[in-house]
């Protein structure tokens, strides 16, 4: 019997018991969307960490560091520093002025249907894109670690479980799944880090001396092929402690900065993270959540260097992948699991596989609840029904149906996109969040002159700029070898040089929002509504 399978089943059993318990406490809209605001700041800190640290951070970063050394660590840094934006500028005013969704805050001062609709669409785009990335990841990871389960089966299992949590247990079950996952992830990562350091006598200098013996090569121009650069130039060799193996060449530094913009601003615009702050009683608890989340997330991302460099030194880049027809097909996602196998055998590999599975489930459940509330609360209740009084039961029912629809859609999309290189989807989610949502959130909270036209213009331009630039970028356009396992969506040379569009699309989003406001008149009662928002955001007066 496969140990990983046993651990998966154990995790599923525990979470289903929690879901059953939560389902008896999930009747009203406030309970379904926001766990009845009953989560403490400390618990929510763990849940935010569980909602945030996706498979991309656990398996992806470890893999990136194992393959490219230092450059992979740049993601880790940005993903923590991002929380300063959340802590200083967003979490508390959001908790004070909103109720269930990101659009609550955006629509506060403005014409309801227009702003609600745009904000809900942006929420759905960010969440769905992020969800597909997670699900495709789930499919490949689960099927690699437990060969008895195929790719599509794995996606269906993940999809059905996330729907069970969300539909029956609402935000309460989702929260506890995220807390348990965060505890498992932290525990597993600490254990792996200790085992890695033990191999080097707990000496950081010895560890880094070993890391510096691992080297990689790249070309200043073009891509490395069979150990040579185009035009006969000599490849540049770097060791793994040195920057440059991933970000180099003409656009390297700018790509790195663009990634930084997306990471440190995007987080404050991720709807599934923002709605977590509605689950606590007040803005002080929201602040406490961010503090605990920052402690956990920071500790975790520092440890990614032990996982990544550990895999690079102890497993070796050349051994990270799966054997197929007698040849090794490299797979970055396997760096952490293979490191675990090396250090603790099959049992530990299974443990790490179960953590990866729990990680994905917790994140997709959070995404499902954020998108179902955007659909049910924003579009259906506030736009279609124009905010007319609706009995709680009806709104919860609509949210559950929306969750089922979104879940089914993401399962189908994830299965049909299996042969695509979906790494760009996470980048796209962060870019849209940073370019469309963050200008809207910051300007509505801090700029009196902002108006409906500016909001709509900023969000539409931010959204379109991110999507169009990503489509033209090397993340989507590229020419693959016919043998590549996953392929670029468009087989042509990229038009936009940067992987991540944020350095262009975020300023565009802000510019459109500001110009849209300055070029059109504010509504007559805009001044008074800003006064209300300003007082509420800063004091918590009238907060629910």
């Amino acid at each position, binding site marked *: 019997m496969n140990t990983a399978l046993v651990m998966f089943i154990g995790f599923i059993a525990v979470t289903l018991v929690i879901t059953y318990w939560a389902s008896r406490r999930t009747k009203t809209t406030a309970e379904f969307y926001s766990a009845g605001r009953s989560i403490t700041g400390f618990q929510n800190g763990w849940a935010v960490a569980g909602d945030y640290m996706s498979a991309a951070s656990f398996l992806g970063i470890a893999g990136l560091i194992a393959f490219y050394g230092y450059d992979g660590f740049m993601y880790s840094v940005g993903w923590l520093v991002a929380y300063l934006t959340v802590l200083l500028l967003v979490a508390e005013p959001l908790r004070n002025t909103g109720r269930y969704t990101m659009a609550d805050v955006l629509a506060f*001062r403005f014409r309801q249907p227009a702003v609600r609709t745009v904000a809900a669409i942006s929420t759905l785009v960010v969440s769905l894109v992020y969800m597909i990335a997670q699900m495709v990841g789930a499919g490949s990871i689960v099927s690699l670690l437990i060969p008895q389960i195929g790719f599509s089966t794995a996606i269906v299992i993940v999809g059905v479980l996330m729907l069970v949590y969300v539909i029956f247990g609402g935000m309460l079950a989702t929260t506890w799944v995220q807390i348990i996952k965060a505890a498992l992830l932290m525990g597993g990562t600490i254990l792996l880090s200790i085992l890695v350091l033990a191999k080097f006598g707990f000496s950081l200098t010895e560890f880094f001396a070993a890391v510096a013996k691992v080297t990689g090569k790249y070309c200043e121009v073009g891509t490395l092929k069979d150990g040579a650069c185009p035009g006969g130039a000599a490849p540049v060799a770097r060791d793994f402690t040195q920057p440059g193996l991933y970000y180099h060449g003409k656009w390297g530094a700018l790509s790195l900065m663009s990634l930084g913009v997306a990471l440190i601003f995007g987080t404050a615009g991720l709807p599934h993270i923002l709605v977590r702050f509605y689950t606590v009683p007040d803005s002080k608890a929201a602040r406490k959540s961010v503090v605990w989340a920052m402690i956990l997330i920071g500790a975790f991302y520092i440890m990614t260097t032990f996982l990544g460099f550990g895999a690079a030194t102890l497993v070796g880049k050349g051994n990270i992948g799966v054997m197929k027809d007698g040849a090794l097909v490299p797979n970055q996602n396997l760096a952490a699991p293979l490191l675990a196998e090396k250090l603790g055998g099959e049992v530990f590999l299974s443990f790490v596989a179960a953590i990866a599975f729990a990680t994905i489930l917790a994140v997709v459940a959070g995404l499902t609840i954020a998108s179902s509330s955007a659909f049910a609360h924003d579009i259906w209740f506030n736009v279609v029904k124009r905010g007319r009084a609706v009995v709680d039961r009806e709104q919860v029912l609509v949210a559950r149906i929306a969750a089922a629809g979104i879940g089914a859609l993401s399962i189908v999309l994830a299965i049909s996109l299996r042969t695509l290189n979906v790494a760009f989807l996470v980048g796209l989610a962060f870019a849209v969040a940073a370019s469309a949502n963050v200008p809207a959130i910051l300007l509505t909270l801090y700029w009196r002159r902002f108006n409906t036209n500016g909001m709509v213009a900023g969000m539409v331009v931010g959204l379109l700029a991110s999507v169009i630039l990503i489509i033209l970028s090397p993340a989507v356009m590229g020419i693959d070898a016919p043998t590549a396992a996953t392929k670029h969506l468009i087989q042509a040379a990229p038009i936009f040089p940067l992987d991540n569009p944020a350095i262009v699309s975020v300023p565009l989003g802000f510019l459109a929002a500001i110009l849209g406001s300055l070029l059109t008149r504010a509504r007559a009662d805009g001044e008074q509504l800003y006064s209300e928002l300003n*007082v509420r955001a800063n004091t918590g007066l009238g907060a629910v």
Partner: protein
Amino acid sequence: MPDPMPDRRPQPALDWPAIEAEPAFRDLVAAKRRFMIPATVFFVVYYFALPILVGYFPRVMERDVIGKINLAYLFALSQFVMAWVLMAMYVRRARDFDAREHEIVSRHTGRPS
């Protein structure tokens, strides 16, 4: 005027512009801004120093400091310390904001917040 959030709990009617004009409220917002603006400018500048230095001056950043632990890695690690220190400073400062908020809220709701 349509209620911007029709589904919220009924609230006592408050004169928002009047509260906004109160000295207590203006002082609160000013105190927050005195911390938030410099803190935000600082962390954004400190953070972007990393991709700029690593991206444009990799040869400087890869200088070894302790054994094979180089400047690039130490500077990246310092970002974590920076984030945590700024977080702790904000939490300390926020106690003062909380006290001011509490005063305003209890004055307008007639109950301790």
